[in-house]
């Protein structure tokens, strides 16, 4: 047969429809698989590594084990579980015992195995915690926050026994062992592949060497991450879901459409309006947890500019349109922070201010009358922060303060707030460890961390915060907390606006939602019917 041009084209066009012999695709069924759609995925598989993005926490959570984990407690409104700071349970640890002098804690390890098949030993735990303390960057900062400061604190007693020596009594030490940083690597596997680097950074960035409930089956940065269940997981009830596909879908409108059509099972990080609409439509479940220790605040610079004058800071707190902001920018997905009565041992909590223009106006007049200032926020948060900023501008105009809004692109925002010269900044901060003193330590303490955007300096406050942080008995702790709350109520370096909820949309067939302080999905508890 002569091959004519026409025949060749016809053949070419037909080629895809000629069935390949004996290689029919074996697609895994949809009921055993969860499809998660998220804005962006992990940029590394190693949460201890420098520059790891927020979703890497999810990798650490699901693919690695820690000594301890937060115990699930029911969300008051229903819909799943959240965590309570003080309540811990063993993950790799079968049991743990605090020493009688309260200066060390001994952990008995379970008979768990790494994905490689090697048993988890105390040596691996030490290698991993040493690594977190010495690798630098965020991991080390987070370890230090719980007084886990140097490798000498981590002691291998025998293969199955591990001890942490405390440098000081700190109530955050044990909870800090349950966050997504001090997880345990297969140290032998890591060292073998390290190429001489004591931290095996390059290898662990691209490979999982853990014992966790899931393995990473495939990882295409910026496209998708596929997790497969580790059937030999020993540190908890075997998860129901065999396979998790996490796709990165940048456009929130697309993610919402996927949820509403029922093609995706779970979606994180939609704009508040979409969550509200989804909730109202009732086709999918929306579970909201007020972010523990998280609050949207307007930071007023206490060192330079007009807000050095405490009367003007109070004026802003009096004129803030709390209710309008909650409705127009968060669509009700949050808790109002105005009109507090007596200070409690909690953070965040409403400050004693509520919208009262006359009071605010009087304070501005007393402080010298109208002026112009600038309000900054991170463009990455624009969905929520922009309407907030506009409403604030509108309200402040009523008391003679003219506000110019400056939307700062993500990469510049850190640089901008590090200058500590901006008169007004809108920002949301949420500490992983849910303690009032922890929050103030980051945002108002004299150590002047980058999140002390108001550059607030007050030795009296530092004293109270430090005393609370290391207080040994509850009564002393409570007294200190109430005192510093009273102090910041009057001084308002930051006007708390609202506590946003962390929302997740789930299909009705998905159960077992577990909120974690790192705010990443925990696949280990999820179920699908």
């Amino acid at each position: 047969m002569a091959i004519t041009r026409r025949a060749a084209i016809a053949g070419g066009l037909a080629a895809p429809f000629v069935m390949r012999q004996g290689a029919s695709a074996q697609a895994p069924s949809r009921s055993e698989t969860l499809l998660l759609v998220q804005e962006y995925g992990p940029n590394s598989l190693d949460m201890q590594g420098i520059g790891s993005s927020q979703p890497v926490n999810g990798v650490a959570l699901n693919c690695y084990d820690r000594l301890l984990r937060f115990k699930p407690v029911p969300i008051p409104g229903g819909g799943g579980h959240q965590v309570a700071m003080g309540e811990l349970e063993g993950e790799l640890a079968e049991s743990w015992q605090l020493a009688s002098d309260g200066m060390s804690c001994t952990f008995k390890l379970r008979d768990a195995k790494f994905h490689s098949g090697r048993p988890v030993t105390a040596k691996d735990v030490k290698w991993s915690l040493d690594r977190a303390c010495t690798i630098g960057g965020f991991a080390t900062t987070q370890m230090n926050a719980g007084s886990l400061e140097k490798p000498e604190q981590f002691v291998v007693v025998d293969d199955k026994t591990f001890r942490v020596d405390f440098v000081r009594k700190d109530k955050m030490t044990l909870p800090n062992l349950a966050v997504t940083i001090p997880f345990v690597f297969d140290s032998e596997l890591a060292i073998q592949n390290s190429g001489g680097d004591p931290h095996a950074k390059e290898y662990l960035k691209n490979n999982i060497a853990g014992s966790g409930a899931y393995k990473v089956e495939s990882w295409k940065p910026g496209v998708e991450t596929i997790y497969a269940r580790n059937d030999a997981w020993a540190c908890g009830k075997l998860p129901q879901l065999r396979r998790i596909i996490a796709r990165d879908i940048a456009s929130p409108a697309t993610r919402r459409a996927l949820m509403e059509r029922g093609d995706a099972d779970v979606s994180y990080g939609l704009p508040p309006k979409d969550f509200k609409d989804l909730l109202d439509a009732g086709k999918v479940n929306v579970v909201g947890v007020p972010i523990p220790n998280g609050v949207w605040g307007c930071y007023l610079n206490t060192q330079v500019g007009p807000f050095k004058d405490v009367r003007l800071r109070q004026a802003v707190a009096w004129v803030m349109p709390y209710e309008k902001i909650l409705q127009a920018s968060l669509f009700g997905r949050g808790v109002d922070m105005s009109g507090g009565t007596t200070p409690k041992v909690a953070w965040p909590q409403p400050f004693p201010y509520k919208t009262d223009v006359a009071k605010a106006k009087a304070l501005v007049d007393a402080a010298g009358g109208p002026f112009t200032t600038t309000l900054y926020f991170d463009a990455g948060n624009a969905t929520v922060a922009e309407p907030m900023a506009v409403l604030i501008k509108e309200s402040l105009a009523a008391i003679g303060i003219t506000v110019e809004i400056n939307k700062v692109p993500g990469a510049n925002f850190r640089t901008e707030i590090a200058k500590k010269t901006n008169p007004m900044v809108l920002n949301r901060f949420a500490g992983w460890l849910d303690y009032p003193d922890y929050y103030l330590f980051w945002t108002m303490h004299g150590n002047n961390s980058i999140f002390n955007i108001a550059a607030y300096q007050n030795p009296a406050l530092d004293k109270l915060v430090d005393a609370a942080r290391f207080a040994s008995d509850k009564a002393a702790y409570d007294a200190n907390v109430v005192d510093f709350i009273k102090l910041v109520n009057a001084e308002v370096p930051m006007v708390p606006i609202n506590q946003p909820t962390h929302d997740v949309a789930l299909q009705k067939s998905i159960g077992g939602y577990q909120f974690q302080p790192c705010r990443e999905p925990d696949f280990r508890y999820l179920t699908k019917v």
Partner: protein
Amino acid sequence: MLGLIIARLKTTIPSILGVIIVTFLLTRVLPGDTAAYFAGPAATPQAIAEIRGKLGLDQPLPVQFVSYVSALVKGDLGQSLTTGQPVTADLAQRLPASAELTLFGLLISMAIALPLGVLAAVRQGSWIDHLCRIVATAGVSLPVFFTGLLLVYVFYFILGWAPAPLGRLDVFFSEPPRVTGFLLVDSVIARDPETFRAALSQILLPALTLAIFSLAPITRMTRASMLAVLGADFVRTARASGLSSRTVIGTYAFRNAMLPVVTTLGMVFSFLLGANVLVEKVFAWPGVGSYAVEALIASDYAPIQGFVLTMAILYVALNLAIDILYGVIDPRVRLEG
């Protein structure tokens, strides 16, 4: 021909060098602190300084430039901080995705725009001419993300005809063995009709979105250049010689009108390749455009430099290809070269 190619390539060396220097400087001049961004939440000034040292950003600019160029010579475009991977690997992964989408969109666009443009020129002032004008105006005035979302809304959300906009393949399909990186081609090579169909159904909507946007320049250019050619002496002569209108338009006029159209096609292609960011975002398409934009937001230098450089090289290659194509279409150009 070979001489022509070499001569052309020589002239591009200065522009490539210029691109290297300019992108290097531009990314450094941009405000924003990469180290502060990647130090993550709760970073101490020491942590930021440590990262800055690790990234080599504490070195003076000339030193940074020398290390950048020496890595470049070895084919190393650096590491992306947003994906954590080498930029070359990222681009190799993403460029085919963008190229496949753009080419497919351009093919659809050509299939509509060329006949429409020719007909509009032949029947000037008729309803088809008006249709051409409306299509072109509408296509160019609708922003791509809007067209994209509209198509998703109608064909996926309301009608349910299109598959979920989840990127290049539905989640339950695995990619065919990689040969060209074009899923449509690779699945044909692997003789896997199901994957081919899945890939085709995924690419259809985003490609259509791009096609709608690129209709305007191609239609208008085809129409204008056809009009010019139809008024030329040789067409009148051909008509006077009694050739059928089909032969006159198809063989003589159209071929001569192709030159400016091919130039436009080249421009539209290279423009779309880099500029279809919004389409990529809406359809979760893992292409180079969204990659570059995300890197830009994070002040992540290496991917931006890699992207601009790749685009510059592609542009050069494309222009070269078009020049060669000119010769095929019009022998006079070949002689002049």
